[in-house]
């Protein structure tokens, strides 16, 4: 099997978990790059090109709330989790635990 195939399987597997991870880190407001740094510091593997569009999509779906801060020299767009986002995060956490158990039981 070629290397590209393996990579695309890995990306596929990670995709769903990224939403869970991002939601879990936005109880305090963050902007794109600060969130990226926070995730990298916690050893979470996510690319900038994946994270930035994801924030925007989650905002469109109502899971995040955004706000432009123009008081500093560089205007930044901050994101924070919404009420709906909190509910979804709870559900996703439980789902993740179940998946984790199921997979570990089967695959070992």
């Amino acid at each position, binding site marked *: 099997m070629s290397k590209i195939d393996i990579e695309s399987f890995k990306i596929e597997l990670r995709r769903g978990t990224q939403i869970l991870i991002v939601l879990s880190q936005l109880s305090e407001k963050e902007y794109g790059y600060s969130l990226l740094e926070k995730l990298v510091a916690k050893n979470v593997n996510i690319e900038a*090109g994946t994270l*930035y*569009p994801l924030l925007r999509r989650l905002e469109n779906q109502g899971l995040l709330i955004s706000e432009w801060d123009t008081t500093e020299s560089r205007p930044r767009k901050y994101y924070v989790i919404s009420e709906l986002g909190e509910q979804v995060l709870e559900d996703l956490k439980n789902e993740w635990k179940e998946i984790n158990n199921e997979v570990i039981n089967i695959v070992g």
Partner: protein
Amino acid sequence: MNKIIEKYIYDVTRRLPQDTREDVGNELRTNILEMVQDDNNEEEIKKVLYSLGSPRSLANSYRTTKKHLISSELMSDYLHVLKLVLIILGVVGLVFGLIDALQTHESTNVFGIFIEVVAMVIGNIISILLRGFAIVTIIFILIDNYSERKDVWKVEDLPEPPKKPTLAISRAGSISGLVFTVIFGAIWLYVLYYSNIYFGWVNTDGVWTVEQSLFNVEYTRGFVLLFAITLILDISVCAFKIKYTKWNYNLAILYTFSKVVSVVVSVVFLLGSNLINPDFITKVSIELSLNVSDVTRFIDIFKYSIIGLAIFGNIVDLISMYFKQFRFINSI
């Protein structure tokens, strides 16, 4: 403001809906500028931009609305309908193209007419296929956009699976076909070359001799080469049938091609204005005490009946071949 960064941002945002461009651009700019510590260091900027990926794929991740005309759930239905429609329209285009071309061609010599007719028929088929393609595609785009997406189905609605394929070609049939094709083909070429000896008003006093030949012998001799080509095509179809013993795509294409060529050559042959020897018509009208115009009309009716039968018969033959033999391969 850095030029490379601006170029990158432009290349991403130009692919996005108008109303989101500015916002996405501003956000992307801040994030990129935060990622590069020193915005005069070109190498560092390049590294950051490469880590973000190509502008196309980044824009694609930003996009929330769908960017396809026909969704993947409808794709197989779409291809299925498209295939059926194009096959049917292809045959229809062939027929009408042939009729149209034979009525309107401008050339007077045989090869000129042949080339002109083939070119017009191909043009006609291409234009009708393009129209069919466009119409089917537009209908599916409309269905995809305006119909309610429901995936309700019932066991009762499931289609019958097709019966076991019968793609085999009878060997005996192919061999006898080959024998008859060779024999009759050779005879036809021979009598075409000597049409002045074999067709005409026969004088039956004692020995049979053709007194007034039916065809212009120069005209029929001009067609020997073209009919020889169609004969070679027919023979190769028979040979490949024997070789493959089953229908396949290559064979079907060759078969279709040979049928089209033979119909076109025959029709061009029959429609030629020099086909009938005018002295023959005079001779017949004198011998049978008929008007010249009546004899001419009778011959014309006869010619057009043969043309009609040839076109109709070959089309039925081709359609039945495609539908019977290829339903199983294509599963259309």
